[in-house]
């Protein structure tokens, strides 16, 4: 991230969205809305004093709402660019017309309540779509009890809990009583491979569940993990070895079977009801916490963006990809890579990104040759 931020040939426009696009390969005009931060990006040095003093709190979206941030905030510590942003919907000044504490505190004079959204027009030869994914919200799958029962979290929430800079300082403290969760169940295919939700396999969840369970054991040698899966899909380089290590070295229990329901006992311990398809029995397992390996979906703006640029999406809402050029969209000069094209893991995304860059260069070189001819 920092490498891209510092690269002389890359200009990063964070907190910005595409508003409109027209043109053709070699000559696109793209209109971009640079959203107002109410903080001057060129002045702010992210010292954090305003954040410390700001009296208003709001759920921290980077930490999945597991803790609060202030109304003036830095999205996350290593973010690019390192500047503060005021959340207009929460800030006392914007809501009630008084406070302005941050302005008083900022020695550099970076706060600017008058700042407006800015429209920037870019002339570019080619466009790469790399809008990634969004996590599926499992709230409406009531059998899993997400948001209804306290100690049920999603895989991404788990990532924040186990992260040393996260809300619990890297300790796996369960939401109901902040006790260390020692026995954790991971439920696979939540929303994935499900005709009523996401038809497809999200591809990365089997591996991240194993990783999560390994991390739990590394943090706490008594941790006990259960992964409930259907087909266990670990197809990448060395993934099978990783799967075996999870079982042999970390003692993870792999259970083949879909979970039917999660209930709760009087101490708010989740009870997982499942069919063990190998033993052909309905069983239950009491655990301290449940992690739902939720499906990954196209980003919510994927459709809007595709209409703006005119390229096709597939039936699942990902950018359609085909041979002979998997990075090409249906519009010449517009390319795509990563999860915007469908489920893929990090190395696949990196390779796809290089491929998209290749197609950009090949297209631009081709146009140059044509012009010369």
């Amino acid at each position, binding site marked *: 991230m920092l490498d891209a931020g510092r690269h002389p040939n890359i200009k990063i426009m964070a907190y910005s969205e595409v508003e409109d696009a027209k043109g053709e390969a070699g000559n696109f005009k793209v209109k971009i809305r640079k959203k107002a931060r109410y903080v001057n990006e060129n002045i702010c040095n992210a010292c954090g004093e305003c954040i410390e003093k700001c009296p208003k709190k709001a759920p921290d979206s980077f930490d999945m709402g597991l803790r609060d941030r202030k109304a003036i905030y830095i999205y996350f510590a290593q*973010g690019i660019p390192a500047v503060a942003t005021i959340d207009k919907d929460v800030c006392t000044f914007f809501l009630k017309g008084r406070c302005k504490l941050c302005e008083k505190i900022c020695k550099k004079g970076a706060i600017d309540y008058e700042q407006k959204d800015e429209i920037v027009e870019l002339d570019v030869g080619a466009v790469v779509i790399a809008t990634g994914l969004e996590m599926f919200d499992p709230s409406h799958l009531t059998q899993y009890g997400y948001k209804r029962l306290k100690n049920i979290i999603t895989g991404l929430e788990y990532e924040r809990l186990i992260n040393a800079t996260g809300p619990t300082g890297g300790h796996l403290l369960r939401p109901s009583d902040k006790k260390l969760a020692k026995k954790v169940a991971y439920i696979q295919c939540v929303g994935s491979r499900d005709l009523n939700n996401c038809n497809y396999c999200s591809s990365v969840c089997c591996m991240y569940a194993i990783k999560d369970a390994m991390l739990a054991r590394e943090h706490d040698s008594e941790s006990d993990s259960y992964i409930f899966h259907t087909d266990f*899909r670990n*197809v990448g380089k060395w*993934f*099978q070895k990783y799967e075996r290590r999870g079982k042999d070295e970390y003692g993870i229990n792999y259970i083949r079977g879909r979970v039917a329901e999660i209930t709760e006992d009087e101490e708010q311990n989740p009870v997982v009801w499942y069919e063990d398809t190998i033993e052909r029995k309905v069983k239950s397992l009491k655990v301290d916490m449940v992690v739902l390996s939720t499906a990954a979906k196209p980003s919510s703006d994927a459709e809007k963006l595709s209409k703006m640029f005119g390229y096709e999406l597939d039936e699942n809402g990902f950018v359609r990809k085909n*041979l002979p050029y998997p990075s090409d969209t249906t519009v010449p000069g517009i390319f795509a890579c990563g999860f915007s094209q469908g489920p893929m893991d990090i*190395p696949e995304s990196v390779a796809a990104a290089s*491929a998209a860059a290749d197609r950009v260069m090949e297209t631009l070189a081709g146009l140059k040759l044509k012009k010369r001819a």
Partner: protein
Amino acid sequence: MEEKLRIGVFVCNCGTNIGGFLDVPEVAEYSKTLPGVVYVKENLFTCSESGVNEIKEGIKNNNLNRVVVAACTPLTHEPTFRAACEEAGLNPYLFEFVNIREQCSWVHKNEREEATQKAKDLVRMGVARASKLEPKDRITAGVIPSALVIGGGISGLSAALSLANRGFKVKLIEKEKKLGGLVKSLYKIYPENINAEEYINQKINEVKKNKNINVFTSTEIKNVGGYIGNYKVKAENDKGNELNFDIGVIIVATGAKTLSPEGLFSYDGKKVIDMLQLEDKLKNDGISQYKNFVMILCAGSRNNERVYCSRICCMSAIKNALLIKEKNPESKIFILYRDLQAYGTTNEETLRRAKINGIRFVNYSLNKLPEVEDNTVRVYNEILGKELLIPADLIILATPLVAPEDNENLSKKLKVTLDENGFYLEAHIKLRPLDFSTNGIYVCGTAHWPASTEESTTQALGAAARSSIHLEKKYVMVEPIVSSVYYEDECRGCGLCASLCPSNAIEMVETPKGVKAKVIEVACRGCGICGASCYRHAIRMNHFSDEQIKAQIRAFLEE
């Protein structure tokens, strides 16, 4: 007169990764007492933009001439911090990295006091070494604007075409008589069911017509000398003619082969065949006489001998089952599987279509492998908990892709590494999947790991992009952390260093003082073997000199 030392020390909390397990303020306070240190700063994240700015400000405002960062590992952020020094006008090789995370806070999580003490020791050693650092300039060398692509399958063809279309010269070498690789043996390519032969022939024709590509079939690499930007490649064709190429970058696209099914599940090549034989039968209308098909997946893979999953066999099997059904709707097809690897969107959709079309899937386990008998396959269905006897006229084994034996040989010539399965080993499993750790050589397709045609194509185009960075720039910049024959008078010209150098980076040259060793800096990777082996101590490692290392050791013993 020697410049007075003005060392700046930056101590990182890394959120709580360091700060949570040792006393960072105490380490920072201690750093102020060390000789030469004039400025100390504690950061929450030294690697964040604000942290990097603090380094730059620190250098400018305090005239620092050495910078020490105590944080994580050089692997993650050394380039970042060096660049920060450079941007602030300080030579980047006057920067010293001290690891107090992986080598301290993470491994001493329950010993706060001792960890703090160790961090102090490490910083003291780092400061001592920093005081002996010397400014260095990066080494630059020209790049011959020509690429060598090894392998003429779908990956090699795709990479070659991409580079050639951008105007770069490409030498494409294939050891077989014909281009096309494994795709040429297929009937159709999933998921779109493209006719494989038409598809690959079209690519071959494009390559043959392209003026920027020279194709050499029946040709093998004999020797690779030189270094990034300037490789000297010797090859030989089947007529015994030697070919010599001057090459800037190399792409390895040598592909994979399928495991021979000999000895598996009563394979006989007639009634029990492998997936490639089925592709061939589908191509030549050779399946109409069969009614009952049984496919056995993971034949020879995901077992103790070959742990890995070959990624593409499930979908090849499902694709072919659907094609059989299309040709002969009356056929009965059973697919015996362990886990169905229908990852992603289209694969899952294809699997669903197969189920709708009446293809039966039977789950078996590694503990109870299916047994092939006369006209039947006996399999224990894990989910039913029952043994099934399935009638079978044709049994198809889905064997995994395996690395060709040749990889061993070629990898040595290229001086790149293989993994434990014989596939080529990339520079970083997540972040650099197409690079080798040797700069200037790239990998794509099934040479790297089993991949579908689409995935191989993506990787090939990606490798073309990666390699073209050097071709486009026309020069490479190399780290000056190389060896040098610093005490030339000590060198007796014995040639031991040259014979041991794994990078062919030392040549013996005639000088007025006799034969002496000479380092080809751009080829040197700074491994230090020459320095360690020179009994005259004539060779010095730049940036890791004896003086620097000794200063570090002395500082440790000082307390």
